[in-house]
């Protein structure tokens, strides 16, 4: 397991660099807007289509600046890291049996999905690691509002990453993660929700660390 690393000095942040793209400076994407049902996990295939629609405004409407999206992505990454740190659910220096990939359970059979830990992974690949964690957190969310908020942030982060990947012309991941939570993992959630939450958050933070590393420099895949 990758060692823990806190990023952003504990301060999640929102950087609103105005570029004249709207009354609040946020980019406006007429055609890109998808109507989503609140607080419901969405099919990744639909999101992918949403990202493909991004080309429509780029072709005919106001262009979306990559540095702007990158700044929002970076800020959301910091916010998520801060949230996770404040949840204080991280006994991750321990090795948890029963959840490790490659042991009793696997991603296919229900292991907690991998987070980051691969610095050379591209933004697209990192974005693809988020949906399983998001769905897992969404499963844990009922009765745990902070986890629901983390799940929502994760969904936003993934959308931003895919947008950035598209804007930068980076290759999109070929394989979408399987939808839903594997049955074995669902059993684990029911059996030991705290453990699953702690490990899932730890892996999400690993993923966030990897994303933050990719975003520190100029816009790049």
């Amino acid at each position, binding site marked *: 397991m990758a060692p823990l690393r806190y990023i952003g000095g504990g301060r999640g942040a929102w950087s609103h660099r105005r570029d004249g793209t709207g009354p609040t400076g*946020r980019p*406006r994407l007429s055609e890109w807007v998808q109507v*989503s049902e609140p607080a419901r996990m969405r099919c990744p295939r639909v*999101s992918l289509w949403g990202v493909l629609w991004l080309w429509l405004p780029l072709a005919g409407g106001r262009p979306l600046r990559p540095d702007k999206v990158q700044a929002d992505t970076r800020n959301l990454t910091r916010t998520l890291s801060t949230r996770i740190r404040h949840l204080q659910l991280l006994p991750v220096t321990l090795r948890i049996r029963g959840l490790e990939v490659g042991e009793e359970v696997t991603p296919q059979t229900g292991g907690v999905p991998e987070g980051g830990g691969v610095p050379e992974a591209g933004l697209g690949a990192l974005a693809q690691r988020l949906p399983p964690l998001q769905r897992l957190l969404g499963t844990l969310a009922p009765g745990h*509002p902070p986890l629901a908020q983390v799940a929502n942030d994760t969904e*936003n982060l993934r959308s931003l990453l895919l947008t950035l990947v598209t804007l930068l012309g980076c290759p999109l991941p070929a394989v979408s993660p399987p939808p839903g939570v594997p049955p074995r993992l669902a059993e684990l959630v029911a059996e030991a929700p705290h453990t699953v939450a702690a490990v899932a958050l730890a892996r999400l933070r690993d993923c966030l660390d990897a994303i933050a590393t990719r975003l520190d420099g100029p816009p790049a895949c």
Partner: protein
Amino acid sequence: MERRRSALRNKMYQQIILATFVLLGFLQVADAQCMVHQIPPRNFTLPCMLLNKTFLSPFSAEVVESWSGWRIEHGAPETKPPVLMNEESFLCCLWSDNNIDCSLYRASMQARKFIPSEISISASQEIDSNWNIECWIKGKLDLLVCTVQFLKLYLRADLKLNLLYAASELSLGDVSTSSLKGTVVAVQCDCSAYDRCECHLPSLGLNHTLIMWLKATVGGTPLWSPVASVKPIDIVKPEPPLNLHLDMTEEGQVKICWSHPEPMPYPLEYEVKISASSGQSSWQMVHVAEETSLAVDNTLLDSSHLVHVRCRNRHGPGFWSDWSSPYNLSWGAEVLYFPPKILTSVGSNVSFHCIYKNKSKTVVSKKIVWWLNLAEEIPESQYTLVNDRVSKVTLFNLKATKPRGSFFYNTLYCCHQNRECHHRYAELYVVDVNINITCETDGYLTQMTCTWSANPTTVLLGSSLQLRYYRSTIYCSDVPSTSPKSEVKECRLQKNHSYECTFQPIFLLSGYTMWIEFKHSLGTLESSPTCVVPADVVKLLPPSSVKAEITRNVGLLNVSWTNPIFANDDLTFQIRYAVNREEITWELYEVSNAPTRSAVIQVQKLCVEYVVQVRCRELTGAGYWSNWSGSAHTLVKDVKAPLQGPEFWRIIIEDPARRQKNVTLLWKPLMQNRSLCSVSRYVIKHQTSGNTTWSEYVDNGTTCSFPWTEHTHAVTVLAMNSMGVSSINFNLTLSQQMSTVSAVESLRAYLVNSTCVLLIWTLSPQIYTITSFVIEWKHLNKEEELKWVRVPPNISQYYIYDHFVLVEKYQFSLCPVFAGGVGKATTTDHFTKGDLQDLYVVYEIAACKGGYENENNTSLSVVLPIVISTSVLLLGALLVSHQRMKKLFWEDVPNPKNCSWAQGVNFQKRMDIL
């Protein structure tokens, strides 16, 4: 031949066997079946069986009784509630075109199958023993009513009629006699009417199968009907249509409209009957309509016609409803508006159509004028002539309807141009749905609270407001628009009549498109949608760990803090600070970007306690200011060494016995703005003519005494605090030689009022330089401390502010202070009476009254009015004295014009009499 006979015999046997089998088969089928009459949605006839004769049924081993005559008895039964029957028995009949065979079936018998079939007319030729029946479900669908009419009225006497029934969810083909076991209910029918009984059954499921039969008792003799069945939904008799009225289409076509009855179990079809009312030819037209309106010829409105409407099941069996109440077209057509009511939003345009009939004559459209609220005639330019009967008016850019009393709408009247209007009007409801939605995301970025408020005066009675929204994946669209995929967000009404809706958890970068939906029975309106990204409307948490201090040596207010969690590094801050007292007056200081999380503020007062608060906001201006942080307080501590030592004076008391003078030094406590900020002790430095120096310290108090033994004795008083001693200090030299030098020629004291005394002095020619004066005063009749003040050497007057009593005695002294020592004091102990003509003194006194010493400022304001008023008085006196002098020296000469003799004499003309 024999073979032929044998074959013929065989064939005959075969036929007999076949016939026997057929007969047996028929008997078996008949044995297992009961025919059930299907009740139609109309009246029908059932035979009744009198069981007064028993015989063996050819197809049953049970006792079967055939029907025949009656006995006549009298009596009226009463309607009773349904009773569950313990033992079911009914006639199980089989009928054909010319015969009907019945057997009494009991529950203990073998189950038989029900077969639906109509009783043919020929089977009930015995018309004297028939019942004429009609069954229907009432329009409210809660009651099944059957009326039973007797064709033989003599049977009416002493009749008791029961209707027995059982309900099943199965269709009739799936129901057998066994299903009736334990489920049969009997209701007693009301036979109080002369020729009929009425049976009421509570409503069962409309799609159930109801199996029923009648059992009557006439003078103790039972009469039975065959079993009948019905699906209640097939015999519904709806309520008649309601609310007939005339309406108009946008094209000016008149139509008769109505409302369908409630409840409505299935789609209805309608029949509209238009007939000439009495006094005219009795023709009528019948139209069938599937909708609740029917276009009619406009010419029908010109004469009196009645309209009736009835309805029935559009696609299946059922009764026609009764005809509705008649509607007179001429009544409704006096004035017609289309639409009769409009609900719209502020700023929109609407149009109304009108047909106006004045005394049974339609007013041509070009003679129609429109009035608003019976008060304002709408300009003709807004009219459109749709055709020769229909006028249209359009209202533009509508303003919100202001409630007038209990009327929440504007009224539009369609009138004749001769200013005659019908009392009916069209209603216009204009609602202000420009509702602003403002959202705020909390500092933890977990919830977004949106608030909106509607003007209570524009919200109509019976209307409702709700916030609808949908979420975009990320960001907002350029032009927010409503969407059918939206959801309703629950909002809470606040005390200030606003609504508050909370989204939690939130999607920080998603666009939430929101609008307010205004729902009313007249329609639905929507406010303009607005899109909010939660990350753009964050109200940050306030800065924490705020600290404030006045820095030493520099003397500045130094404020430091910690940025809030979840905040960006690019923040702008506001610091408010104030002297901590009861009524705090804040001063604001802005810091646009503070990577050090601190700010330095220059403040006027260094030796007071400041209270400091900080708040922050995104540097770009997005979002909201945070709340103010908790207060930080500065500590009052020494910032610097005292700026200067205290002013001091001496009191010399001579001790003749010892031939010694004792000196007491008096000084005034050092103010905070000089001490910065406190004085821990005073240091008195002595230096005598023998060059002897020493110091002494006074920790508490402001006096110090010592003997004056040398010719000269110089004293310096220093103030001291934790930062050091004062660098600028006052000196005083006591000199035996200088103490005899007088410098003041005269000294006068003027009492201005009880709080002010003016001292004026003149100096004699000097050879010594005066460095300052010290004025002393004391109350001679009281044991009071000597009061003193040091004044500069270049003035010759001074206002002393104290409490003075005119009748008391005070002593005022003026001591010149030379560089070489204190000179001789000049003293006065009485007040000089000021002469009013001495303008100089008057103006000086006035200045004292004014409370300030500036000569130039007071001269004009005081001297000028006095000079002017004096001049006016002098002028007046001069005029009066002039008149008196005139009278004194000049005698009055009579006017000759007043004499009688002088009447008619022209004195202007010269007249020589000599």
